[in-house]
């Protein structure tokens, strides 16, 4: 499951140099160490069960009893403009995701083998499930 948590967490970016995400109750905030080591340049913020976990470069984990929106206000920009990744990536992702599908190789069984149906309700892989569901009757999934 740790693997899934790391693979399926999707961040948003604040111009202040912060990557933030709200993670589902099924996940664990301990994944913050993975991301703060991977992206040492940025602050990582995870909102989990109403609390916000903050870490940078794998040091000094802070936990606030507030939602992300409130915690974000306490941070100042510290990176140059070239590190502004705040452009919404959802459209880029949706278009890219669709572009990779090879219709002649369609294999719904394999898809569900790799992305368990139990992750569907988490609402993270909306694009993935809507693409596959769009091609199948609900009873077949």
């Amino acid at each position, binding site marked *: 499951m740790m*693997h899934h948590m*790391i*693979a*399926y*967490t*999707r*961040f*948003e*970016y604040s111009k202040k140099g912060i*990557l933030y995400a709200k993670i589902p109750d099924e996940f664990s905030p301990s994944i913050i160490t993975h*991301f703060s*080591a*991977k*992206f*040492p*340049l*940025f602050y990582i913020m995870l909102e989990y069960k109403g609390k916000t976990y903050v870490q940078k*470069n794998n040091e000094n984990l802070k936990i606030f009893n507030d939602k992300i929106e409130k915690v974000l206000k306490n941070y100042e920009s510290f990176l140059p403009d*070239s*590190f502004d*990744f705040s*452009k919404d*990536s959802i*459209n*880029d*992702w949706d*278009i*890219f*995701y*669709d*572009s*990779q*599908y*090879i*219709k*002649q*190789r*369609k*294999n*719904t*069984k*394999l*898809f569900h*083998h*790799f*992305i368990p149906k139990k992750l569907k309700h988490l609402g993270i*892989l909306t694009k*993935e499930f809507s*693409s*596959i569901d769009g*091609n199948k009757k609900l009873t077949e999934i």
Partner: protein
Amino acid sequence: MNTLEKIKILGEAGKYDICASSSSKRASANNGIGNPSSPGICNSFTSDGRCITLFKVLYSNSCTHDCKYCQNSNNCGKQKAIFESDELAKTFMNLYVKNYVEGFFLSSGIIKDADYTMDLMLECVKLLRNKYLYNGYIHLKIIPGASRDKIKQASELADRLSLNLEVPDKSSMSEISNVKDYKLDIIKRFRYMKKLQLPSGTTTQFVVGSAYDTDYKIMKKVNWMYSNMNLKRAYFSAFIPIKNTAFENKIREKLDREHRLYQTDFLMRKYNIGFSEIKKVFEDEMMPHEDPKILLANKILKEPIRVESANYESLLKVPGIGPVSAKRIIDYRKNAKIKNLDSLKSLGVIVKRAKNYIELNNSFQAKIGEYC
């Protein structure tokens, strides 16, 4: 043309390229963005069950070449597009930091000539490494015919380089292209790459069924590449006819053939079974429609393997025993006796497959008539 349209066209144009790994042994630079070693993380899967780990696009789908199966060839009427280097680098970074993908894969059709194209690709990768401090995984395709200097530069920036052989030899190449020179444009470039220290080595891909090749010819070439070119991995992609290409009416290759080639390749790479043994199972130079490991066992195992005493290499020849379970058996034997099939099962052996080929406690494990 806006970036979204380019992602659509150039993502689609690159979708037939296969790339699996997204991890590298390259040391991670402090304070950059990302790291090159996140083994086995698949951030998504497509409806065909393939994992999407890398942002895989072409720099451009314009191409001077005429490969008859390829949707980017010069006489295929597809809409053409080209990224700007910074546009592409920034688009990728936007997806990477948000954890949609684990790395970057860049290939291209040939614009003007090989080195001109390599320069554009290298410009993009340099922006990633120097401007955006990107420290994650990069897989770069080498353009057929690229100079030694461009290949060297690519090796200094990327974790993995690859160049597609597409077919096993010169005569097959002449079936699919009038322009590409197999020895000069491809094999010679592999010789350059061989001399470079690449964190994740080189890979190649065959478009199986694009020319009239046999499995024997393909696997013989793969074996030669592993032995002589330091190839790390070969990928196989069953030919699919694409509309408006010269091969649009050619018959599609069965996915099953692709699967058998992967199984055969696995025996060579992971089980260290030599091609001289593997070639015994080909029939009319094709791999029969059965698991190659079972075919091989039926051919070469003259008597059951004694699980209590067989060495690692012998254990590996038994269907149902893989590198992990073979090692577990050897470790287990140091301290305890393997009593029965259940003990083997607990060590990860697929007993249903293995029992026909093994002897345990001096008794053959298959029932009379099961041994073939």
